[in-house]
């Protein structure tokens, strides 16, 4: 699996790289949060397509790039810990779990930018 790794508010997250159209640079001074908490620097945005074909973007602090992850390193979340439905699992990066999110689902549940 190819995962795009990014950072929001000091925490790392991952999304299916196939969902991301591009990474834009944002003008400085714009700060917002979209369900993953407030950004710190927030000068990058992941641009992706929602289920109805529209494009949306998620403001992030850092983009770490695309990693190819073995399926054996993926895990489901413990039961009941994804009430909003957009946190779809975890990548075990050594001892540090990285939350995997579904970008269109996140926008659908709690709104985007």
């Amino acid at each position, binding site marked *: 699996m190819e995962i795009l790794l990014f950072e929001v508010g000091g925490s790392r997250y991952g999304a299916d790289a196939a969902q991301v159209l591009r990474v834009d640079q944002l003008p400085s001074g714009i700060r917002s949060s979209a369900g993953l908490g407030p950004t710190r620097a927030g000068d990058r945005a992941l641009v992706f397509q929602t289920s109805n074909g529209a494009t949306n973007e998620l403001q992030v602090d850092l983009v770490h790039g695309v990693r190819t992850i073995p399926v054996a390193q993926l*895990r489901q979340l413990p039961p009941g*810990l994804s009430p909003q439905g957009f946190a779809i699992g*975890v990548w075990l990066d050594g001892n540090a779990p990285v*939350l995997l999110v579904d970008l269109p689902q996140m926008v659908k549940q709690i709104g985007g930018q």
Partner: protein
Amino acid sequence: MDSTPLQRAIQSAPDRGVVAKTIPEHEYFCFRLGDLQFGVPSEHVLEVLRAGPLTPLPKTPSFILGVCAHRGDVLPVLDVLRFLGKGEARVGARTRLFLGITGSYVAGMVTDAVIGLRRFPLAQILPVPLGGSNASEYLSGVVNAGTRGEAILLLNLSKMLHATRRRAVNR
């Protein structure tokens, strides 16, 4: 012939053994969190480990601090203080987790310090005061046996873990 000391001792021995009267007691895993001391039934504790990297989960109750990885599994990490409405745990370098289990559900619980296993006679366990906060429904009793005679709050860990799972889903 004079009897030997051993023969005399045997002659004075009772006909049947006297069974020592056992005092019913229960074993608890005790820990400190914030200004409070807690105990949970030891059969509900799997192990104690250092707190590794915690990944926060968005849009979950505040008492769910996040998830951690342990032996290839992903476990929720809970804050007892937040759950009971008695403050907030601070996770730092000295934080330890103990793995609590009820049925097949395992969760990590943060502690500031592990006190260890303690056995308390059942007669020493006091009932939870009536009319207390909502937290009292998750306490099975109180023991005045802390390191300085403080109260140790005995948690009904099974009930608490089921409630955390229910509250996480219903959010």
